[in-house]
């Protein structure tokens, strides 16, 4: 068939994995919805759905990896993958933009309106609704939602674990680049060492983040329910942590493939995709560190 040789663009036939993905994902989400609605069977559905989804991911990625190693993809296919990954990362950036937008909107605009900034509310909001509220960030709102028993909470400082985590992620960006140099120089040992270091740093970040969360919940009165500060803090850092975990798993797969001898200096889309994703996660963290922890 013309479409399976290297000179023609590869068009796969009979894709069975997407339908698995649809079934798995909708079972997972319907299960989650049922769980939230208080139905006992919801969590079982979630586990089944997740199982199908994970099977699909193994199957689909496995198929593509085999095709790649068999040399079916020509240069043009490689470029399609690269464009696809870049636009996917762009969509992820926009997802984070929604939550950063929420943070800026509340910190810059709606907090001061709530506190009766006369340029907007002519002072009446404060008198009628929330007397005594002053907009000092961080806060959990005029109703002191969540927090410790007296309604207060301790905000997360920047210069403890978060600073250490910044250091860890920035170093991991360096180690993954070092691994890439190894791959380009056909130095397999450097590639593998660099990836091992990156993966270890990645999972250490997740571990430290979990420690930070534990401290917040158990001692600081800082939870997802601690007003707008808790909401933005945990949703932003939580989704970021999820993405770090995904990125670290992605890099782990790339590590195992490197150990098995996959990738060449010229043909290593998966490595670069993982590295791009990792840098994206890194940049989001810098935004978090500055605007959530520090300022």
């Amino acid at each position, binding site marked *: 068939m013309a479409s399976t040789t290297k000179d023609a663009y590869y068009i796969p036939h009979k894709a069975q994995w997407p339908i698995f993905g649809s079934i798995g994902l909708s079972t997972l989400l319907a299960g989650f919805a049922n769980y939230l609605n208080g139905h006992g069977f919801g969590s079982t559905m979630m586990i089944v759905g997740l199982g199908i989804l994970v099977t699909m991911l193994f199957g689909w990625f496995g198929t593509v990896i085999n095709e790649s190693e068999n040399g079916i993809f020509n240069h043009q296919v490689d470029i*399609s993958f690269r464009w696809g990954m870049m636009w996917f990362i762009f969509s992820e950036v926009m997802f984070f933009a929604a939550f950063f937008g929420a943070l800026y909107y509340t910190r810059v605009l709606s907090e001061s309106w709530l506190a009766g900034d006369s340029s907007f509310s002519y002072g009446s909001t404060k008198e009628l609704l929330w007397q005594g509220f002053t907009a000092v960030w961080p806060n959990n709102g*005029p109703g002191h939602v969540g927090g410790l028993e007296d309604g207060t909470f301790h905000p997360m400082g920047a210069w403890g674990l978060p600073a250490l985590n910044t250091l860890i992620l920035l170093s991991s960006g360096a180690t993954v680049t070092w691994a890439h140099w190894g791959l380009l120089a056909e130095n397999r040992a450097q590639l593998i060492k660099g990836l091992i270091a990156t993966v270890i740093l990645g999972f250490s970040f997740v571990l430290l983040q979990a420690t930070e969360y534990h401290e917040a919940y158990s001692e600081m009165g800082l939870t997802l329910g601690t007003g707008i500060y808790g909401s933005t803090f945990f949703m932003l850092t939580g989704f970021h942590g999820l993405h770090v975990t995904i990125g670290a798993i992605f890099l782990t797969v790339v590590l195992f493939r490197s150990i098995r001898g996959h990738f060449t200096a010229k043909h290593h889309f998966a490595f670069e995709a993982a590295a791009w994703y990792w840098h994206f996660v890194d940049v989001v963290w810098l935004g978090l560190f500055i605007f959530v922890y520090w300022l």
Partner: protein
Amino acid sequence: MSVTTHDDTHAHDHHDHGPAKGFMRWVTTTNHKDIGTLYLITGLIMFFVGGAMALVIRAELFEPGLQYVDPHFFNQMTTLHALIMVFGAVMPAFAGLANWMIPMMIGAPDMALPRMNNWSFWLLPFSFVMLASTLFMDGGAAAAGWTLYPPLVLQTGHALPFTVFTVHLLGMSSIMAAINIIVTVFNMRAPGMTMMKLPLFVWTWVITAFLLIAVMPVFAGAVTMLLTDKFFGTSFFNAAGGGDPVLYQHLFWFFGHPEVYILILPSFGIISSIIPTFSRKPLFGYSSMVYATASIGLLSFIVWAHHQYTVGMPLAGELYFTYATMLIAVPTGVKVFNWLATMWKGAMTFETPMLYAIAFVVLFTMGGFTGLMMSISPADLQYHDTYFIVAHFHYVLVPGAVFALFAATYYWLPKWTGHMYDERLGKLHFWLTTISVNICFFPQHFVGLAGMPRRIPDYAVQFAEFNAMSSVGAFVFGFSQLIFAYVIYKAIQGGEKASSEVWEGAEAHGLEWHLPSPPPYHSWTEAPAQALISDLH
């Protein structure tokens, strides 16, 4: 350049992997035409589902008082009608056209990422089943309007998490489709098919795809915040916790405004393909069309709060969003004038696609003008949340986006099926549809200006006559669409054989007219000859 040479090359290239047989062909297909067909059929089915809901609404509004449904169910109908028409009918139909036409138009064998193409379609049926199932849940479906504003939407019963997850699934589907389209156009163009040679339909879809990738994630984020506010105690939209319900409106419309252009830009592309063919002239001002489309795309990101003039904004915000919104009239005007200039002194004929295209230009422009009226924030204080806005967006979406889809269907149906459609029935469909759509929506301007609020099942008796007219128009419109479905069915079954160029002189307007009708299962496995491309205009 003879067309038959191409047919021969393709015929023997492909005998070994034609379509598989049976139902699984459609489930596992990676073929752009199969997936395009699935999208188009889904769009048509959902058009009838959403249309049935619209008729429930118009039946209730036929006269004042409460007749058939209780107010809560009425609000579920307005909500689901909108969600289904936007995400179920118009967007899948455009995605179907993109799948069918883009590889044929740019000289590619298929879409760039065929497996992902399959997945982006096959998420849709699951999401629509999930959305439809919410009608039967405790507390009914979401009833806060398609915008899902808190705090009202947070009163939804068991349907809330299902509605949120439906949005997530639809968002994933749209993002994957959009990525595929961009990658296909950037990477799969035949040699010689430069960006400024692309048919306008392809250009408008590239910009639409960019909008989709940029804003669907924001909508996903916003509904995620609804979910966590309801179930996990966050305070994004709760003022007591320091949040603000208006924040949701900003997030929603940051998505929602580009979204309405997602619904209209591909229509511009279709109209820009059809008018030149039936005017037998090249498109007037091609490059200005491209730049106008890009400008509309960029402007769509910076005008969102014109949907929120009455909710409370600093004066500077009201002024900024008024001026920025009015700017959009400039590139849109460029387009309308270019279409008119294309027809000027053309040798025009009026087959069904052209009739729909002309009706589009006239009626969409009217919808555009009412939009301009509402862009002026002090004036909008009067129109906001009345039937005037309902009339406005139905003018741009029904005789706008939906007419463009009708036009596209009649234009390309002979190419897809290999058979000419029934021109007599097509014209009947056109006249019934065009007359009834105006009877349905034109009176809504009047009741809106007089103050009739939207999303209310009952109204003051002074609005009775116009509402009765509107309902009659809606029912005629709705049942006229059965003719459309029949014309499509008939063309699939058989009819006069269509030539490869189908329309006189169409070969000069796009590569798709150089492939036989119906085209081979894989479009261009060998890139089209340079001469074919350089002869396009």
